């Protein structure tokens, strides 16, 4: 017998805001935060286009920065979600809790800092601290140590669906009884390998990303983190927590098609959606909104549109689907966690966020992508789609709180 899992806290640190209300207001207005990158550089490629997070002073402390930029973003989102859930470090409710962090790149900048010293110093540039700094598991233990979490500390990597994968594993632990409370986080910082790699593969937008638009020509990257507190429903009720939404289930698949390119027909996405619907007991007609992966690449956006049609058939065009990456850029492993927070807010506010930069749909993208501005509407069930380099597909299902 599965236990019901509810979302009792959310946190985001994004270019669109580092608190829930401004974040929601900004994305509903369709404000695009993509612009010149000021605090991160990439040799031979500057100026970069993307999004960056302006962290408040409390989150940008030296102590938080010691973990690296990704750790800093992770800690900032975790604190917000735990505060939102009304949990204090070391409280009985949090002691048995754990954390799953999903990340595409982790502390990759630690490697960059070492390599910057390499031409001058060679092997002497390798300092003793590199061993633990290059260990991505640190992202989870930083959070657990800071907040007195004594349960599982897990870091999962499924490329750009890592945030959703973290949510799925946290859900699995709570629903099966392995833990009463789990913090699920997706986090990533801007890194030079992702910029240069996508440039060389021709997958980087020449301007800014335009998901589902005729001008779609590639990805624009960003940084950020999203966090959700997942809790067993009765555990949450007993401590008087506010139930913001229910996490009803998830679906997984792998394309096993190509090391970089997604399945062109979106078959893996179809499988993940169908499994998510089946395991959450959701009928097709119940789905009110789909948060798209929507990266702004022809590969993804056309395949995702095909997948929607394969699953929803004639109803596909009637289910609003949008991509907030049009405003935040693609924050890699953070993206689907941030998008899960957006779905939670959509359920709370009874409105769905838009796809910005969408003025003329791509000829192969003919669904309702909620162009330009958010839309008030009844929202009872959301699907949160994500896909990653290497064929990793994860879909989570969020519903109004029971």
């Amino acid at each position: 017998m599965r236990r019901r899992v509810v979302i009792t806290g959310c946190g985001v640190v994004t270019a669109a805001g580092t608190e829930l209300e401004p974040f929601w207001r900004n994305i509903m207005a369709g404000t695009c935060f993509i612009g010149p990158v000021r605090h991160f550089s990439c040799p031979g490629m500057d100026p970069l286009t993307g999004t960056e997070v302006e962290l408040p002073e409390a989150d940008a402390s030296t102590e938080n920065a010691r973990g690296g930029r990704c750790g800093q973003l992770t800690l900032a989102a975790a604190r917000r979600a735990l505060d939102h859930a009304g949990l204090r470090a070391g409280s009985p409710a949090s002691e048995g809790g754990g954390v799953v962090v999903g990340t595409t790149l982790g502390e990759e900048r630690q490697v960059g800092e070492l390599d910057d010293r390499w031409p001058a110093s060679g092997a002497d540039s390798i300092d003793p601290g590199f061993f633990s700094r290059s260990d991505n598991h640190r992202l989870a233990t930083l959070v657990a140590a800071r907040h007195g979490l004594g349960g599982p500390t897990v870091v999962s990597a499924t490329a750009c669906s890592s945030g959703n994968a973290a949510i799925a594993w946290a859900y699995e632990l709570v629903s099966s009884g392995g833990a009463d409370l789990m913090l699920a986080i997706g986090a990533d910082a801007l890194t030079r390998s992702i910029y240069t790699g996508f440039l060389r593969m021709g997958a980087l937008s020449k301007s800014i990303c335009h998901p589902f638009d005729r001008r779609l020509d590639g990805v624009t990257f960003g940084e950020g983190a999203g966090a959700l507190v997942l809790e067993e429903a009765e555990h949450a009720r007993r401590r008087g927590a506010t139930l913001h939404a229910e996490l009803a289930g998830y679906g997984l698949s792998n394309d096993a098609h190509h090391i970089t390119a997604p399945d062109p027909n979106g078959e893996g996405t179809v499988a993940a959606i169908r499994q998510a619907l089946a395991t959450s007991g959701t009928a097709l007609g119940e789905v009110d909104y789909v948060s798209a992966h929507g990266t702004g690449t022809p590969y993804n956006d056309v395949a995702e549109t095909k997948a929607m049609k394969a699953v929803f058939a004639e109803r596909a065009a009637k289910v609003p689907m949008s991509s907030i990456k049009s405003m935040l850029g693609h924050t890699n492993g953070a993206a689907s966690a941030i998008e899960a927070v957006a779905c939670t807010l959509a359920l709370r506010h009874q409105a769905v966020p838009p796809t910005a930069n969408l003025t003329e749909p791509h000829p192969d993208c003919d669904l309702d992508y909620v162009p330009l501005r958010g839309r008030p509407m009844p929202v009872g069930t959301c699907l949160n789609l994500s896909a990653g380099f290497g064929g990793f597909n994860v879909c989570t299902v969020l519903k109004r709180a029971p």
Partner: protein
Amino acid sequence: MSAARSDGAVVPPVAVTGASVLTPLGDSPSTLFAALLARRTAVVPLADLGGAAGAAIADFEATRYANVRGLRLYNQPTRLAICAAKLALADSGVEAAGLPKEQVGVILASTFGHLETLIEYDRSLVTVGPQRTNPALMPLAIPSAPGAAIALAFGAKAFSVTLSDGGASSLDALGLGAALVGGGRAKACVVVGAFSACRDLVLAAGRAGLLAQASDYRVFDRRRSGLAFCEAAAAVVLERPEDARARGGRPRALLGGQASTFASDPGRLAPSLGRACEKALRAAGVTPAEVDLVCSGASGSRPGDAAEAHAIADVLGGAAARVPVSAPKANLGDSWDASGLVQAVSAMSAMESGKAPPIVGLEDAEVPGPNYLLEEASLAVHHALVTSISHDGACSALVLSRPHG
């Protein structure tokens, strides 16, 4: 048999139907186990590291084990993982049974599996500039890349998930694999862990004082002085027992419970691992008195080994003096992401052979209480407890049981 989880929820156990290892002491569970029984050790001084301890597989040639397209593009941990997965799938009979690809999943334990490629790619950005880097390297330089390569190699379409939990990775991966298979998300799941320390990582660990001198390497001993990295991979195939039997497969062990905990303070490691053991035993429906063997993750770490010993003694209580404790890292060194799987496979070998290997090099145990195996033992193993502690405080425990009938 059904297993009660910590809250009383009932979760059926999952069967292990195939296993493999690739280690410096053997490339099959039987050859490794024979080497452990024979007290052989793989730990030697690493070249040009001043005698620091380590172990590597001699003359590893991936094509001996797997004929997979693209193998030459992948780094050593990825090749090891693919080969271990291939061997475990073959051992289970899942490959021959021709399960639909949509019903086969992959869980990879890998914290550092991408690191060598990332360093190679990133260093080339600095040394030759972004326009002259090898674009084929970047997709292989992210932490999920080895998992993508394994899924691609076997056409595994149910899922591929990578867990990067340091030394606790592979026991956590077994827990996730069991949950996904038990929950019906795949008919079969290969859980694989692989580790091969790249040079930068070894240098950093050596400079951090984490590595023992090869001449001093030992576990649980009062004179232990640190770790020895060991290149290795291991894999198991998980299926629901009824699915395995339906295709003519043989459950070789049942995975009844797994649990993870964390302690940031080294002084709290023992109670933290103790909690993980207790949760895993409860989940498996096994009492401490029913445990027949502990396969410990003791690695030579000063805080880690002491915590393992205290936790084992505390959890087993009155049974501690009777239940034999083995520790394969004494022979192999620490294979990090693969280590929990190597221990699990060793425990399965003990179950099947009725023997348990001694802890090589242990002369003066620091913590009294546990029944450290100093000589090979003959015993009937119905339930084995497998433990692991990562260097950063993650603790994980797993219970394996002998199948009925």
